[in-house]
């Protein structure tokens, strides 16, 4: 049984990493909350769930995430059509723009958004500041790309002959869409919607910055309970609730995905026609919506003392007004790049192992269940509070042999855990689409398992590996949640530098923060553009 032995060994490595760097810290935090005096206090936990405040928080979480998900789907599906079924110049750039918000640090976006809707801002007249509309807008901003990529990847591979057949049988374009195309896309839409709902219901930075204090979701509530009130029992109660909901969502997303194995072939895209005008306009509007906060950020970075200037960019070589930084912003950028290289390497290494295992086609129902479980467990980091994870690191990885709190690898490892699900989602579909008989043919001709990997999997998967690496790299560049808990200030990443700059007074610091944000956005956009050139449709899809 050499195959199964191999699978067990391969599975053990990422599982061990997940246990040590995710499950164990989270369990440590929950443990503190559930056993405040050393014995289990379930009464306290249940008590938390009966508080009116908790009910308000839960209700807000559900409706804001639900509505944002619906909006993201309504906007994302037409955009997916335009960006993935039509063919026109500049499409690659637009596709990169659509995923960009996903990799931008929330702290940057939060500030950019607020600048936009604050009463003096570009959209100030709409009086959105502090309203749930602003939160919804930001949630859609972050997540519409997920829908576009997921649905687009599926749409691209859809065999258009089924649509042609329906048309030949007399179906109007609308009927073709509702009776053939939509049902075929449904698994992708459901999968994307559940992941977006997951992201929205666990959104943190955006809700905290834009919600003021009026609106809190489960995630910000956990943050407040943990960091401000030290009410770990309540935090644990909410975390457990969150974990349960996430598990259900991931299971739903998994079931939906099962119905949609992306096709290996890419259907020919066509040039836009007159009839596409509406959709193209909608796409332009969505892209405009995604670009506006970023443009306002660029403008802010170039304004100094009422005029245009590159001063804020020149300032990046210094350490800010009033020594706001311990190192210069450029050092922060260098460090960010280094950390991103490390994080992307870890994520790729682990992600490829996981993707390899989940892309095998199991032959018994038992093995299938095990595979699904394995797959799901590695998606969990997507939906667990960064606060819980960050604090968990602090209280669990604090003694030998796991005394890692001061290790320079801690930040890359934490970021790798965040990027891991994205790497898996990028690589696994490509590996699954490889006909297993290719591997069997090679093996029968005398190629050992490693040789099969090199000769069959690698030539077909290298693009997706490269794309996943780039994606992980971009995500790491922008990661703020977990990093802010773990980064050491003498070795900050650029988002941490930006956060420090905006938390210190002085117009120069704020200007530097906008300049640094632009630098960060340009860096991530460049990486995403390169990734886009590889034309791996599973990037950013779920």
């Amino acid at each position: 049984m050499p195959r199964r032995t191999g699978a067990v060994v391969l599975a053990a490595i990422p599982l061990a990493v997940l246990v040590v760097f995710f499950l164990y810290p989270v369990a440590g935090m929950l443990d503190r909350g559930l056993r405040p005096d050393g014995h289990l206090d379930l009464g306290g936990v249940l008590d938390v769930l009966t508080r009116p405040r908790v009910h308000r928080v839960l209700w807000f979480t559900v409706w804001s995430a639900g509505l944002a998900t619906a909006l993201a789907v309504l906007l994302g599906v037409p955009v997916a059509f335009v960006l993935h079924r039509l063919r026109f110049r500049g499409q690659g750039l637009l596709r990169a723009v659509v995923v960009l918000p996903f990799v931008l640090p929330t702290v940057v976006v939060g500030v950019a958004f607020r600048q936009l809707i604050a009463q003096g801002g570009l959209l100030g007249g709409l009086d959105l500041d502090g309203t749930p509309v602003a939160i919804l807008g930001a949630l859609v901003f972050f997540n519409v790309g997920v829908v576009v990529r997921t649905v687009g990847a599926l749409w691209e591979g859809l065999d258009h002959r089924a649509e042609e057949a329906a048309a030949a049988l007399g179906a109007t374009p609308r009927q073709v869409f509702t009776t053939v195309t939509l049902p075929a896309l449904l698994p992708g839409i459901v999968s994307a919607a559940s992941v977006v709902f997951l992201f929205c219901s666990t959104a943190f930075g955006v809700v905290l910055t834009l919600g003021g204090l009026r609106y809190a979701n489960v995630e910000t509530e956990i943050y407040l309970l943990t960091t401000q009130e030290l009410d770990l029992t309540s935090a644990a109660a909410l975390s457990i609730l969150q974990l349960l909901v996430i598990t259900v969502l991931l299971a739903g997303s998994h079931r939906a995905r099962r119905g949609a194995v992306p096709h290996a072939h890419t259907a020919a895209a066509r040039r836009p026609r007159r009839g596409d005008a509406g959709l193209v306009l909608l796409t332009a509007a969505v892209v405009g919506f995604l670009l506006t906060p970023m443009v306002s950020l660029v403008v802010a970075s170039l304004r100094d003392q009422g005029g245009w200037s590159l001063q804020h960019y020149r300032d990046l070589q210094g350490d800010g007004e009033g020594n706001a930084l311990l190192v210069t912003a450029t050092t922060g950028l260098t460090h960010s790049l280094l950390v991103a290289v490390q994080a992307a390497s870890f994520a790729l290494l682990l992600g490829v192992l996981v993707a390899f295992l989940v892309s095998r086609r199991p032959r018994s129902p038992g093995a299938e269940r095990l595979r699904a479980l394995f797959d799901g467990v590695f998606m969990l980091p997507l939906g667990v509070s960064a606060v819980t994870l960050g604090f968990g690191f602090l209280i669990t990885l604090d003694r030998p042999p796991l005394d890692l709190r001061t290790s320079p690898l801690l930040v890359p490892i934490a970021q790798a855990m965040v990027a891991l699900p994205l790497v898996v989602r990028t690589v696994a579909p490509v590996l699954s689409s490889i006909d297993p008989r290719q591997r069997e043919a090679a093996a029968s001709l005398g190629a050992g398992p490693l040789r099969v990997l090199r000769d069959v999997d690698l030539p077909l998967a290298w693009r997706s590996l490269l794309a996943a690496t780039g994606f992980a790299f971009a995500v790491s560049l922008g990661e703020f949640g977990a990093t802010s808990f773990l980064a050491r200030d003498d070795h900050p990443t650029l988002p941490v530098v930006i956060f420090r700059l905006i938390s210190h007074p002085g117009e120069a610091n704020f200007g530097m923060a906008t300049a640094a944000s632009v630098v960060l956005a340009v860096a991530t956009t460049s990486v995403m553009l390169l990734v886009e050139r590889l034309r791996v449709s599973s990037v950013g899809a779920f």
Partner: protein
Amino acid sequence: MRTRLITASALLLAGALALTACGSEEKKADQKVDQKPGKTLVVATHDSWAMDKKVMADFTAKTGITVKIQAQGDAGQLTNKLVLTKDEPIADAVFGIDNTFASRAIDEGVLSTYEPTLPATAKQFELQGEDAGSLTPVDYGDVCVNIDDTWFTKKGITPPKTLDDLASPTYKGLFVTPGATTSSPGLAFLLTTVAAYGDDWPSYWKKLVANDVKVDAGWTDAYTVDFTAGGGNGSKPIVLSYSSSPPFTVPKGGTEPTTSALLDTCFRQVEYAGVLRGAKNPKGAQLFIDFMLTREFQQALPDNMFVYPVDTTVPLPAGWDTWAKTATKPYTVDPAEVTEHRSDWLREWRDITTG
């Protein structure tokens, strides 16, 4: 072969999970202070830490100790992190626990005793009673309402002066403050109102809410985004900030700030330093606390962290004596009382402000 591997990986999993269960029981006894300090010193502090590199280099030159700064969020987060990690402290020394969180840190046994000789003028900032031995005052600051004078001049509106003014219809929708649950200046402002109105503070806050006060998550949001003079495109000319904020609004080429602090609305925040219990380099921590009380460090505080040195004999930066005066009669609340009532006050405050 296969069974062995399965067993091995199962053991690995079980082992990792078991780690969560053990560990918290073993408490470290207070380490003895060695005669020789370690070569590096880790200082946990809040996100507002900033200091001249030259000053820090002087400390290293004097003592041979390199200081590693670890910012851990705001004062509240800092304190709570230290409480959570007290079994295996994340640093040797802490700087930045303020009088609103001092009691929690002390009650939770985060700190060990160290009582350096204070500059004569610093005595007034010391904690009362036994607590004085655990935390050393380093600086203080006044959290005050700030106003954009230019805005009020331009609009021809008389600027507010007192807390009561903020609830007046004249200033409806003009005031922004960071929240008490999410930021330390916000908590300080809540305590200001507690000190000013006693048990009646909730009704004052209800009036503020009725007057459309905007409550942001953090100081950054309130000052840099919503305040008219904070660098962003804000629309609120009244903001909760510090008495030291105005000098930073002197325009380039100008000589006077465009904003000022309302000195009748201030809460006095004192920031303390202490040696953490279980520190790996307690001697170094003590040396660093001594250093923070030297004139060199004290003098560098205003420019770097916008706070006033506890050694009031050191000269302040230019302009501070005119534009960054401290309150003569700041509001205060006894730290022990803060610790006792904090959760209740915050819960009530949250219910009022988030309706």
